[in-house]
C-alpha cells in the first residue's frame, strides 16, 4: 500500500505545495524531490512487485511496470532540467507549470497502477487536462492555438475512450460477481463469456480514443502543433510519458480482446493504424523545415511502430514493449536538446537554426546522436527493437508489412536527415540574440543521462528487463491470470 501511496501521493503533494508557495525560485525544487521519491518507489517495485491493494483496484503487473519506469525516469531527468530551464525563464510565473508537471506524474502513475478500466480512464483524463497549461506556457498566440487544438481533440478522444469503456461494461454485463465488472482481472477472467459485438466496439472506441492521445494517424493532427509550441521539456513529457500511458490503455484493451480470442481482429486494426501512421509521418517529415514539428511527426511514426509491433504477434509485442522504452528515452533526448537549440537560436526552423554545432556544441552533438538512434542505427537501443519488429514481421511471413516498414523507415530517415544535418552542421548565419546563450550544465545532464541509457540498452539488455518484457508480452497475448 505504501508503494502506491508514494507513487500517487508524493507528486500530488508536491504539486499542491507548488500551488501554495509564492516564491518562483524555490517552487521548482519540489519537483526533483517528488520525482526522486517516485523513482525510489519504482525501484522498490523492481525489487519486488507490490501486493494488490484497495481490494484489487491497484496492482502493478509487468506491462504497467515498464510504463511506470519510463515515466519515472523521464520525469526525474526532466525535473532536473526544469530547475535550470525555469531559472532561465524567470519573469514568467511558473506556479501552474510546476504544479501541473507534478499532477501529470501523479495521474500517469494512477493510469499505470489501476486495474480498473474506468480508473485508468480517469487517470488519462487528468493527465490530459494537466498537460494543457504546459502547452500554454509561452502565452503567445501560437501557443493558445496549439492549446485549443490540443484540448478539443484531446477531449474528443477522451470522450470516445469513455464510450469504449461503457462498451466494455455492456460487453461484460450482466455481471453478478465479486468486484466491479470493469476490473481488468474480472474482464480477463470472464473473457470467454464477453459479448463479442460489444467487445469489438469497445476495442474500436478505445483504440480511436486512446489512439488520439497517442497521436496515431489519422488522429494525429494536434501533435505537431502542440509539440511545436510547447517548451522542450513539455514536449519530452508529452511524447515520452503521456503517449506511453495512452498506449498502455490500448494495450489493456488488446489484452482483453486477446484473452477473449479476438486477437486477430485487434491485430489487424493495429497493423493498419501502425502502417498508416508511419506513412503519414513519412509524408510530412519529408521537407519539414521546423525541427520541433519534425520531432512530432517522428513521434507519430514511432507510435505507429508500437502499434505495428503489437499487431505482429507475441514476438512483435516483445519488441514493441522494448521500443516503448527506447522511444521514450530517445525522444526525451531529442526534445530536450531541441529545446536547447531552439533557445540558442531563438527559432525552430532550418532558416533560424543553422550550424548548432558551433553555438551549442554538446546539445547539437546529442541531438545528432539522438537522431541517429531514433532512426534505428546500431549500436543504439532503438535499433534492436526496430530490427526485432522487422524480424517478427518476416518470421510471421508478413513480407508486405516488412517491405512497407523498411521502405517507410528509409523515407523517414531521408526526411529527418535533411533537416537535422542542416540544423546541426554549417556556420550560424546570425549573431546570437537574447541574454542566455551556450550550453548549461543541468540542461545537458538530463539528455546526457538519457542518451547514455539509450547506448547502454543498445549494447546490453539486462536479464531482469528481458524477463519483465517477456512476461509483459506473455500477459499481452491472451494469457489469463
Amino acid at each position, binding site marked *: 500500500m505504501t508503494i502506491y501511496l508514494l507513487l500517487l501521493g508524493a507528486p500530488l503533494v508536491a504539486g499542491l505545495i507548488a500551488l501554495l508557495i509564492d516564491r518562483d525560485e524555490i517552487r521548482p525544487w519540489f519537483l526533483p524531490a517528488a520525482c526522486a521519491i517516485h523513482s525510489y518507489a519504482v525501484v522498490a517495485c523492481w525489487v519486488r512487485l507490490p501486493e494488490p491493494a484497495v481490494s484489487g483496484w491497484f496492482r502493478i503487473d509487468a506491462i504497467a511496470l515498464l510504463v511506470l519506469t519510463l515515466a519515472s525516469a523521464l520525469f526525474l531527468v526532466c525535473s532536473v532540467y526544469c530547475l535550470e530551464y525555469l531559472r532561465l525563464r524567470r519573469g514568467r510565473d511558473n506556479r501552474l507549470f510546476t504544479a501541473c508537471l507534478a499532477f501529470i506524474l501523479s495521474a500517469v502513475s494512477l493510469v499505470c497502477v489501476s486495474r480498473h478500466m474506468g480508473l485508468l480512464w480517469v487517470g488519462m483524463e487528468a493527465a490530459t487536462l494537466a498537460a494543457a497549461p504546459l502547452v500554454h506556457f509561452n502565452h503567445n498566440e501560437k501557443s493558445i492555438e496549439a492549446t*485549443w*487544438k490540443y484540448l478539443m*481533440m484531446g477531449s*474528443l478522444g477522451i470522450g*470516445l475512450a469513455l464510450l469504449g469503456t461503457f462498451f466494455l461494461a455492456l460487453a461484460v454485463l450482466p455481471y453478478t460477481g465479486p468486484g466491479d465488472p470493469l476490473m481488468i482481472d474480472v474482464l480477463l477472467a470472464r473473457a470467454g463469456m464477453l459479448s463479442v*459485438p460489444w467487445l*469489438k*466496439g469497445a476495442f*474500436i*472506441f478505445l483504440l*480511436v480514443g486512446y489512439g*488520439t492521445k497517442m497521436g496515431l494517424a*489519422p*488522429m494525429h*493532427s494536434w501533435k505537431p*502543433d502542440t509539440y511545436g509550441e510547447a517548451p522542450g521539456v513539455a514536449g519530452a513529457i508529452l511524447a515520452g510519458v503521456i503517449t506511453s500511458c495512452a498506449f498502455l490503455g490500448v494495450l489493456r484493451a488488446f489484452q482483453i480482446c486477446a484473452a477473449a480470442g479476438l486477437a486477430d*481482429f485487434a491485430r489487424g*486494426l493495429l497493423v493498419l493504424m501502425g502502417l498508416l501512421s508511419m506513412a*503519414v509521418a513519412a*509524408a*510530412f517529415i*519529408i*521537407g519539414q523545415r521546423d525541427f520541433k514539428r519534425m520531432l512530432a511527426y517522428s513521434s507519430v511514426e514511432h507510435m505507429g511502430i508500437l502499434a505495428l509491433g503489437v499487431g505482429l504477434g507475441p514476438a512483435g509485442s*516483445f*519488441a514493441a514493449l522494448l521500443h516503448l522504452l527506447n522511444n521514450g528515452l530517445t525522444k526525451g533526448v531529442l526534445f530536450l536538446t531541441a529545446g536547447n537549440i531552439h533557445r540558442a537560436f531563438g527559432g525552430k526552423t532550418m532558416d533560424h537554426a543553422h550550424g548548432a*554545432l558551433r553555438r551549442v556544441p554538446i546539445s547539437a552533438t546529442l541531438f545528432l546522436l539522438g537522431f541517429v538512434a531514433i*532512426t534505428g*542505427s*546500431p*549500436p543504439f537501443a532503438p*535499433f*534492436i527493437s526496430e*530490427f*526485432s519488429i*522487422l*524480424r517478427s*514481421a*518476416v*518470421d510471421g511471413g508478413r*513480407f508486405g508489412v*516488412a*517491405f512497407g516498414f*523498411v521502405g517507410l*523507415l*528509409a523515407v523517414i*530517415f*531521408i526526411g529527418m*536527415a*535533411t533537416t537535422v*544535418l*542542416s540544423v546541426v*552542421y*554549417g*556556420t550560424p548565419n546570425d549573431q546570437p540574440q537574447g541574454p542566455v546563450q551556450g550550453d548549461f550544465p543541468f540542461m545537458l545532464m538530463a539528455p546526457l543521462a538519457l542518451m547514455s541509457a539509450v547506448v547502454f540498452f*543498445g*549494447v*546490453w*539488455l*539486462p536479464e531482469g528487463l*528481458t524477463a519483465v518484457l517477456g512476461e509483459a508480452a506473455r500477459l499481452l497475448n491472451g494469457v489469463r491470470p
Partner: protein
Amino acid sequence: MSLLLAAVATLGVSAVASFVFSRRAAWARTLVVGGLAVAAALGGLLASRALRGQGVPDLTGIWLVPGAVFHVGIDPLSACFLLLVLLVGGCAGVYGEGYIAASHGHVPAAPARFFFLLLVAAMALLVCSRNAVLFMVAWETMALSAFGLVSCEHDKPEVRKAGLLYLLCTHVGSLCLLALFAILGHNAGSLEFGAFAAAPTLPAALRAAAFLLALIGFGMKAGFMPLHIWLQEAHPAAPSHASAAMSGIMIEMGLYGLLRLLALSGPVPAGVALILVVAGLASALFGIMFAMVQRDLKRLLAYSSIENVGIILLGVGLGCHGLAAGSPSLALLGFSGAILHTINHGIFKSLLFLSAGAVYQAVGTRDIEACGGLQRGMPWTCGLTAIGAAAICGLPPLNGFTGEWLIYSWLLRPDAGSGMRFAAPAAAVLAIVGAFAVVAFSKSCGTACLGQPRSEAARAAQDPSWIMLAPMLLLAVLCVAIGVFPQPVLRAAFAAAGDVARVSGSGVGADFDQWSRLLAVVGLLGVGVWSMGALLWTWRNLLLRRRGVGHGPTWGCGFTAGTARMQYSGSSYPVPTARVFASLIGTREEVQAPVGYWPAQASFASRTPDPALELWLPVLVRRFNVWLSAPRRLQHGRLQISLLYMSVFLVAILLWKL
C-alpha cells in the same frame, strides 16, 4: 581471437584518448600512431596465423541482445581483409597526423582522429564478426564514423551536401541489409552466420529478394553503378587520409559482405553470376569513362574507385559462374582474381589518394588545371604518384597487373569459350577499361606533376613532411614488390577464395600451385624489365658522360615564346578519346569558334555530368515531392478538418469492422 579483441580495444581506447587529449597535439599524435601500430602488429599476427592454416578457434561471448551473440572468428577470407584494413588504415592514419598538422586547423583534429580510429576499429571487427547483429553494429559504426570524417570540414556547403548524400545512401543500404538478415534469420532460425550456412536453401522468391537486397545493401557501400551516387561526392569532401581509407578499404567492405554472403549461401544460379558480371563491366567502363573527364583530382580518383570495384565485381561474378558451372577451379580463379585485385586496389588507391592530399595541401586546390610542374618542387610525391598511376593502369611490372591477369586468364581460358559467350566481350571491355585507365592517369599525373607550373602556388609547391611521405613510400614499395613477387599475396587470395567457393585446402593447393607458377614467370619478367631498364639506364648515362648534355627550352616547332598556358590542358587531353564515346557518357561541349581573319575571342568548354546524380536522381526527387505534396495539403491547420478525419475514420471503422 583475443588478439583481435586486443587490437580493436587498442584502437577504440586510443580513439577516445586522442579525443580527450585533443588539446595536447603531441600526446594525441603518439596515441594515434602507437595505437595503429599496436593494432596492426596484433592483427597482423592473428591474420598470419589464420593464413598459415593454423586453425584459430572462434570466440563467442554472451551478449544480452535478442538474437545477438558476440561471436568473432577468423578464416583466410577475413584474414585477407583484416590485413588490408590494418595496413591501409595504418598508413593513412600515420599520414593523417602529418596532414592534420600541416592543414593549420582547416581539418578539425579531434574529430578527424577519433572517427578515423573508430573507422579502422569498426572495419577490423566487421571482417571478423560471425553474427548478424554484431556485423550490423560494426557495419553501422563504420558507416557513421565515415560520415563523421566526411563532414569534418562542414563549414563548406559542398561538404555538407556530400555528407547528407552519403548518409542517406549508406542508411538505405543498411536498411536493405537489415531486411536481408531478417530473411536469412527467418530461414535459419538464428542470426548466427554458421546457422545461415547450415540453413536449407531459400524458396525462389525469397532467394531473389535476398539477392536483390544484398546487391543494393552491399553495392551501395561498394559503389557499383548506378548506386555510386554518394561516392564521387563524399571522397573529395573528406580529408585526404580519410578518403584514402574510405576508398582503399571501406568500399571494399561492401565486396567483403558480398563474398561472405556467397561463402554462407553457397552456389548461386548462373543468371545471378551473369548479372554480377554485367554490373561489374558496366561499373568498370562507366567509372573509368567519367574518371577520364574529371578536373578535380580526388573526384577522378573516386570515379576510378568505381571502375576498380567494377573489375572486382566482375571477378566475383566469374567466380559465381564457376560455381554455377560446377567447376571449382574456375570459381577459385575468379574469386582469387577478385580478392587479389581488391588487395592491390586498396594499396595503390590509398597511395594515390594520399599523394593527392599532399598535392592539395601544397597547391591549395584539387583542380589539376591549376597544378603542373610539381615534379620540380615535390619530386618524391610525384614519383610515388607515377608509380601508383602505372599500377592502377594495370601495367606489368606492378601489382595492378597481377589481379587483372588472373581475370583475363579466366576470360580467355580455352574452356571459357564454350557456354560462356560473355567471356570474350568481357575481355574486350576489360581491355578498353585498361586503355582508358592509361588515358585517365596519364592525364591526371601528367597534367598535375609534369610540364610547367600553371600557377604560382604550383611553382612554390614543396614536398610534405616525412611523416606524410613515409606511408606513401611504403605503399609504393608494396606496389612494386607485389608486382615482381606476387606469390604470398596470391596464396592468401587463393586461401580466401577457397572459403568463398567452399573448396577444401587440398583442392585449393593444386590450383594455387598451377597459378602461382605462372604468376612467378610474370614476376620474373617484371624483374627482367626492371633490370633491363637499369642496364639501359646505366648504359645511357655512360654514353652521355662522354658527350656533353645541353639544356634549352622545349622545342616549340619554331615558336619560341611558349608559355605555361600554351601547354596541352588536362581538359583537352582526353577529348579525342571521349569524343569517340561521348554518346555513352553524355559529354556536353559549348564551342565558340573563332570567326573572321582577326578573331577577337573563342572559347571551348566541355563538361560531363554524372548521369545518376545530375540526371535521374533529381527527376526521382521531383516525382517524389510531387507524390508527397498531395498528402501535405491535408495538414492545413484547421481544427475542424482534423476532427472531420477523426470522425470519418471512426465511422468507417465501425461500419467496416463491427
